[in-house]
């Protein structure tokens, strides 16, 4: 089977993380986490600081390399605990793209340059093709008129929307968001949340680490609550928000009050 066939076959199956373990020195960030992420849904990862939610998200994209565990992209588990060949790393990374808390746009490239770089360099698209797609995606995030602006001239919210367009340009199966609105003031955060909600409406697969309960309530199909490197609760948003579990109630109160 070719890579494209494999990918087509995978497209029906969920992404599975199996026994993912990650330690930083003595700190166990992820304690043998198993998680299945369904296609076409929005999964929100919640949890207190240090619960491992960002680390888990980053493991999906191998920005963090697990100490042990397997990732199943849909056609069988791949061991990611030992040494991973560069080819396998590329294969796993090709399925997901991360949107960062600090945007991490390339400051020396315009908005359009940011969105077209990887399609040309990594996917082998022609420049014309990439630019047409790039302009379309910038329009989609409401920034058609900012294509030629450098990041330094954009607001935080605009930068994050460019970053989302940049991720969409890779056409990944999984869009990963690591606290996408945490660096933004509420008004700018709202712009970004609107874009995320629109993407969720299109039945794309979103995995979002956030501190925003409002976002979880509004957009999530499923809420995973992590604590101490383990999944403590995994279910619908209703289940999460109604849970009488003392820990969850306390978390909702603390987070909900800010």
């Amino acid at each position, binding site marked *: 089977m070719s890579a494209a066939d494999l990918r087509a076959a995978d497209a029906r199956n969920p992404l599975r993380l199996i026994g993912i373990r990650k330690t930083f020195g003595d700190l166990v960030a992820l304690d043998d986490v198993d998680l299945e992420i369904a296609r076409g849904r929005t999964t929100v990862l919640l949890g207190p600081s240090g619960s491992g939610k960002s680390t888990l998200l980053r493991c999906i*994209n*191998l*920005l963090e390399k697990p100490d042990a565990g397997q990732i199943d992209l849909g056609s069988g588990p791949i061991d990611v605990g030992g040494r991973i060949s*560069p080819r396998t790393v*590329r294969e796993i*990374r*090709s399925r*997901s*793209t*991360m949107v*960062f808390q*600090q*945007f*991490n*746009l*390339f*400051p*020396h*490239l*315009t908005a359009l340059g940011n969105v077209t*770089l*990887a399609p040309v*360099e*990594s996917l082998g698209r022609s420049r014309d093709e990439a630019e047409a797609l790039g302009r379309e995606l910038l329009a989609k995030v409401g920034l058609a008129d900012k294509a030629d602006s*450098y*990041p*330094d*001239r954009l607001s935080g919210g605009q930068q994050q929307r460019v970053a989302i367009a*940049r*991720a969409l340009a*890779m056409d990944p199966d999984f869009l*990963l968001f690591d606290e996408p609105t945490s660096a933004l003031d509420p008004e700018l955060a709202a712009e970004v949340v609107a874009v995320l909600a629109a993407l969720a409406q299109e039945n794309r697969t979103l995995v979002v680490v956030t501190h925003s309960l409002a976002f979880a309530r509004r957009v999530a199909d499923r809420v995973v609550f992590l604590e101490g490197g383990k999944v403590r609760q995994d279910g619908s948003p209703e289940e999460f928000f109604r849970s009488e579990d003392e820990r969850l109630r306390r978390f909702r109160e603390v987070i909900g009050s800010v």
Partner: protein
Amino acid sequence: MPGFLELWLQSLPRLLRAAVEVTIPLSLISFAIALVVAVVVALVRLYGPAPLKALAWAYVQVFRGTPLVVQLFIVYFGLPSLGISLDAFPAAVVTLALNTGAYASEAVRASILSLPRGQFEAAQTLNLSRATPFRRVVAPQAMRIVLPPLANDFIDLVKGTSLVFAITLVDLFQVGRQVAGSTFEPMAMYTLVALIYLVMVSLLSLGQNVLEKKVSAHVRS
């Protein structure tokens, strides 16, 4: 006309000729090589395998840790005893390039280290492979940071070429010495020599400004 002006006008053609024939080509060729050395050494020290890393570190230590004039003597007068005989000009090029390369490699390394980790992570998540992250993400940004220290190194190199008289090259400074010796006007002569160096370095500084503007186009002023 005061005596020193007359001397200046008389000796200027000889001095300029020495600058054009020796000092300037020596500076340009040595710096071009130094740049290549600097980038390679910086990349090895950042990303190379351990033994190469150690080698690159040792190179920087040796060339930063010993005087330039001693290095010139070793290369020109010392190496022939090991069977490596270089003419004075190539010996000067090799020494100046390796000396400046050691300093410049640290500037290049620092410029890469100064990029936020997020830039590398963005390149990773976009699946940019092999040399692409360096070529399209790291180098253009590091360029802006590395320019001022590199200009420093280039300026040091230009002034450092004044030591090559010690290995028989007749550069700007050596011609100045000859004229000063024959006219018994050291003050007037060495002042003129100093002024010529100052003009050359000022031109470099102008070039630096132009380049800095060019690579900073994306930064809001």
